[in-house]
């Protein structure tokens, strides 16, 4: 197998399949639109709009969670990272997977039992409503914004690769189309429509990856060792099989990797759009089933990406991948073309688009729900707004967020997608996780502790990022010309997460006010028994 021979032809062939790619993608949009319209018929109440009437089963919701979680960064990013950096790319997927145990053991069921629509419902349950709700809503919006920006920026670079549109105006146009489609899904279908889009996408993505994995393994006689050997040979570097190729260069980069590892494993259970998915099932038991399904599907998928990444390294070659439009992100599509020609490439490309669409829709409805339910209904109108008005506000917010995402996507086009996603994880782990854990498990936790921890974590994460090499001071920075980077790590987690936990504790022990013990008792009893939890909506 001579991997160095394949290159130029394959890259050129990518553009010839543009029409096919667009055709398959149009088919996906048409099918999902029909489903979204059908699903929207029963959208009457706020519980319908935000939480799909709490009518999904655990397995459906688990599949949707996988669809939500396996973003373009997971699929294209990790496959590409393994193809180029070998073992270090694999480390990402382990962090992303193990993180689900935090959600399973500590968060999912208790959250489902105590909340209604948003993360803030749980955090403000036994603390003072206004300050905690505002803080939780702000950090929800911040996390959603970074994640959204990452996905929209990813859409831009994906387009350059898959549709052969390389000029800025053409890419902007496609970002607008993606954004407009997403607004329609969320506006019409609400959580129900969004969930179905995610379920369909997850099935297509996992099936596509499974087929490619089987094809790669078949080439190597289903012998993983042969595949690895061939990848090392093609890379002309046996170290692709060992850790350290990307992060082992200096002491700083090693520390940076620890920081990333911390943010990944603690971030997942604090991502607002993941948390909100637990409200779409009728009971805590179904929430548990959702996580179990999600863990199996996501774990399986990451095992596939290991094979796909090394497969791309062996069959396509790192040099070809790096020189293709879209760079590292093009590993999976190039491998698809190598294995199954234009048809498989078209399918995988369409799935990648669908991925962005589905993830963006999930983020948008989360941000809109947080604004309408937490800020508008509970803070601005102090709980006096009726559910109808609240949903109306949520719908308008969807349009505003959609427009912002389109503008942000056009502006951030070309930025490093993986960094933006890792940033969202770090912000979530710093701003949200300490307060979630304390309010569920620490009896004495107070409002001041929550507010200190959330604002402190949020501010620390964002400030450290601003003064890191990610923004200035290095060749790959957002502002390469300037240098105001005094924080050496590109991921703030190792500082901001412990700091937020510390602030939560400090704020609590210094707080002179005590919280209502009756509320604490109520939250604890409800969270463990599910008494009085929101039930499924019957139509």
């Amino acid at each position, binding site marked *: 197998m001579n991997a160095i021979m394949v290159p130029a032809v394959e890259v050129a062939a990518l553009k010839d399949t543009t029409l096919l790619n667009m055709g398959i993608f149009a088919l996906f949009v048409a099918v999902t639109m029909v489903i979204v319209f059908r699903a929207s018929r029963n959208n009457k109440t706020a*519980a319908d709009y935000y939480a799909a009437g709490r009518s999904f089963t655990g397995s459906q919701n688990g599949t949707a969670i996988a669809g939500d979680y396996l973003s373009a960064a997971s699929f294209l990013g990790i496959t590409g990272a393994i193809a180029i950096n070998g073992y270090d790319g694999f480390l990402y997927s382990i962090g992303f997977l193990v993180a689900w145990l935090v959600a399973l053991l500590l968060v999912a069921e208790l959250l489902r039992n105590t909340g209604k629509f948003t993360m803030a419902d749980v955090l403000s349950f036994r603390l003072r409503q206004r300050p905690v709700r505002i803080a939780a809503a702000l950090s929800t919006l911040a996390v959603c914004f970074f994640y959204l920006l990452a996905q929209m920026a990813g859409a831009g670079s994906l387009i350059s690769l898959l549709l052969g549109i390389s000029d800025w105006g053409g890419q902007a146009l496609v970002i607008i189309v993606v954004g407009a489609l997403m607004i329609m899904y969320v506006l019409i279908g609400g959580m129900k429509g969004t969930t179905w889009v995610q379920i369909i996408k997850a099935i297509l993505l996992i099936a596509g990856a499974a087929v490619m994995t089987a094809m790669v393994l078949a080439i190597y006689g289903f012998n993983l060792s042969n595949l690895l050997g061939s990848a090392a040979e093609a890379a002309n570097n046996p170290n692709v*099989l060992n850790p350290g190729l990307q992060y082992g260069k200096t002491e700083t980069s090693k520390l940076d990797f620890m920081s990333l590892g911390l943010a990944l494993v603690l971030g997942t259970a604090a991502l607002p759009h993941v948390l909100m998915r637990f409200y779409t099932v009728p009971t805590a038991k179904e929430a548990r089933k959702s996580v179990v399904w999600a863990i199996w599907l996501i774990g399986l998928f990451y095992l596939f990406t290991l094979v796909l990444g090394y497969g791309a390294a062996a069959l396509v070659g790192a040099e070809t991948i790096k020189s293709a439009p879209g760079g590292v992100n093009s590993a999976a599509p190039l491998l698809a073309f190598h294995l199954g020609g234009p048809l498989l490439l078209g399918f995988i490309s369409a799935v990648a688009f669908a991925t962005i669409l589905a993830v963006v829709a999930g983020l948008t409805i989360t941000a809109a729900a947080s604004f309408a339910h937490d800020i508008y209904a509970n803070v601005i109108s102090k709980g006096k707004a009726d559910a109808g008005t609240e949903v109306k506000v949520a719908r308008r917010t969807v349009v505003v967020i959609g427009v912002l995402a389109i503008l942000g996507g056009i502006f951030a086009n070309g930025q490093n997608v993986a960094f933006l996603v890792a940033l969202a994880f770090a912000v979530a782990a710093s701003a949200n996780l300490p307060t979630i854990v304390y309010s569920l498990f620490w009896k004495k936790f107070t409002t001041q502790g929550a507010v200190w921890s959330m604002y402190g974590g949020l501010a620390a994460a964002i400030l450290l990022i601003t003064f890191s090499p990610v923004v200035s001071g290095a060749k790959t920075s957002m502002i390469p010309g300037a240098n105001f980077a005094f924080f050496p790590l590109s991921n703030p987690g190792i500082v901001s997460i412990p700091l937020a936990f510390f602030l939560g504790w400090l704020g609590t022990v210094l707080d002179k006010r005590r919280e209502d013990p009756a509320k604490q008792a109520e939250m604890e009893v409800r969270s463990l028994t599910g008494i009085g939890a929101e039930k499924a909506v019957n139509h």
Partner: protein
Amino acid sequence: MGNEAQPQDATASVDFQEVQQTERFRTLRKRHRSFVFPMAVIFLLWYFAYVLLADYAVAFMSTKVWGNINIGLILGLLQFVTTFGITAWYVSYSNRKLDPIAAEIRNEIEGHEFDKGGNVIRGGAK
């Protein structure tokens, strides 16, 4: 606007502090915490041990075991195995030890055994 207008639930009259003090609830809480806390500590330690090894013990991780498969890859795949294993264990533990007792408490509360005011029958001879 349908069911949103309904009173939030029928638990407004429940004295949760009393429920919190019952033997049964304390058993439930103890069973839950004595599983999830140690398990969380174990998998986090195991994960960080793995990350530290990959970060600082590259030579060890690169040791080939058979063919091109090295210790790093085996430990990485073991992370998958333990994640799946802990998931399955937790599900079976919940089904056996947590769900039945949670359901009992829920039924008692819904049967108005813990209403405020103290003028209610306290669950008979139990």
